[in-house]
């Protein structure tokens, strides 16, 4: 049980040319199932973005295609720092959501229906208030005279108010809260699909509960972790309202830079170049996460 799960065996256990042909024809049909979503997104997502991204290779006074906007942004330290901050912030938020979400999901699978219902309901709550309304709650919680500071000062933990609102920490807290549902539900699904007797077996064979948890449950829930992490990462890196409302104007992330150029100054060349760079970098991270996660797919050879 200690060894990591093997990647799924590439050849199916069936043998013979006929079986292989059957598998091959099933693959062909499978392949076609991805077409509707892909075609839809090509027409309704890629083509529109192509129209916008056209601005990123055009400049006034230049005929034809130019990379001047890319060169300008990619040699700008402030831009690169902001890009780095966005990626780091999204990874951190995803990690916080994972650390808090995993125990909750684990407990969910071991509790009765009333608890489960309560957890499910509470999980949906953050998604029910619009980000702008929610920012009011964060002002109440994180503010100078907010709940956290009242508790901290009241218990003598700190002398004066801790600055949380309009700091990067405040944004981390607010973002991780709203990402938690996107982490939690895929985790619950993954753990529900696991066979609880696996962990019991490990414990009865002498492993401690913690060891069984880390060596059996954690690796086997990997597909849920990957799904939750990808959703949470993608949603954090594109989040605009929470960084603006809870972060104030003290720092920038990629979406606020995009807003400034796309909406405030109507500089669509800079806006679309920024968006394209963000997309490529974030997709690379997502792709990396997926490749990592694929190593843990259900593998009959490893059971």
């Amino acid at each position, binding site marked *: 049980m200690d060894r990591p799960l093997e990647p799924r065996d590439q050849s199916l256990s069936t043998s013979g040319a006929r079986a292989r042909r059957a598998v091959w024809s099933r693959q062909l049909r499978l392949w076609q199932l991805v077409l509707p979503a892909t075609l839809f997104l090509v027409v309704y997502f890629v083509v529109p973005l192509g129209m916008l991204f056209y601005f990123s290779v055009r400049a006034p006074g230049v005929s034809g295609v130019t990379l001047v906007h890319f060169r300008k942004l990619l040699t700008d330290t402030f831009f690169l720092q902001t890009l780095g901050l966005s990626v780091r912030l999204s990874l951190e938020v995803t990690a916080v959501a994972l650390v808090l979400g995993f125990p909750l999901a684990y407990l969910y699978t071991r509790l009765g229906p009333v608890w489960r219902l309560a957890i499910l309901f509470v999980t949906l709550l953050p998604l029910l208030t619009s980000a702008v309304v929610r920012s009011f709650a964060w002002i109440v919680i994180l503010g100078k005279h907010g709940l956290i500071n009242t508790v901290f000062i009241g218990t003598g933990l700190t002398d004066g108010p801790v600055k949380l609102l309009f700091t990067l920490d405040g944004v981390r807290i607010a973002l991780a809260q709203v990402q938690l549902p996107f982490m939690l539900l*895929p985790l619950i699904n993954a753990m529900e699909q696991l066979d609880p007797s696996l962990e019991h077996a490990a414990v009865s064979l002498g492993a401690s509960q913690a060891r069984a948890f880390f060596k059996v449950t954690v690796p086997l829930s990997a597909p849920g972790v990957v799904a939750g992490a990808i959703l949470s990462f993608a949603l954090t890196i594109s989040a605009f309202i929470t960084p603006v409302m809870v972060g104030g104007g003290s720092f920038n992330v990629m979406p606020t830079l995009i807003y400034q150029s796309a909406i405030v100054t109507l500089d669509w060349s800079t806006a679309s170049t920024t968006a394209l760079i963000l997309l490529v970098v974030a997709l690379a991270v997502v792709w990396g996460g997926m490749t990592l996660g694929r190593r843990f797919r259900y593998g009959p050879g490893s059971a």
Partner: protein
Amino acid sequence: MPAGRLGGRVGHVTFWVAIWTLALGGLLYLLLPTLIIVVASFTAGEYITFPPQGLSLRWFTRLMALAEVRVSAWRSLIVATAATAVAVVLGVAAAFPLVRGRFAGREALNAFLMSPLILPSLVYGLAALMFVSAIGLPLSVPVLVLSHVAIIVPYVIRTTAASLALLDPHLEEAARSLGANAWKTFLRVILPNLLPGIATGAAFAFISSFDNLTVSLFLAGPRVETLPIRLFAMINFDFDPAAAAISAVLVLITFAVVLLAHWAVGLTRVIRL
């Protein structure tokens, strides 16, 4: 060995204390902001405060008088339902080849299908409006629904794919070898196992569409105001406490839906037995 066993028991207790502490902390964390908004919505004062200045239902009364809130909420419900239905069909279908298929560029396609979530939605809103205007499509509810589909389909794909990755392929093989045809295998064996994943994706998709402001801000026609747009108008220049009351009502409705879903699922289990 008694010392070791005692150590094991201490470890056991420590483990569960850690799990419970993190889990309860997580629950409080999820709950707190909404709780504050709901409590604040009962304020008797003129503006939104916490703790509220006296308790009253005045902002709920005001909410009921705001006809445009009702109209826009109803419209958002229709848009989100339609968009979710389309996204589930497209997303579930796409998840199968993305997990089971073996074709060139599958990983790239997998990542590509996540891009609507990665791009700040204002970028997509702008782009989609340029596209729709260029091909001369008038802004209408169907156009709005399709643009929502584009940004919510990744949720369904991702959660379904995660469930599918955990599904034991032997299950299907067993069903097939017992003589079930492809459809029967899908309906009786695969689908029930994927249902939680699909339902999760659908819930995320629905809520994201229902809550979407940016794309709607660009693609809603003048007489197609959605609830987030109305909320924005209520908060943007003056934080109307009725906006907090809307959140409280949504919380109540969701509570009812969760209970109902639980009851319905319980019922189907009873019937199946």
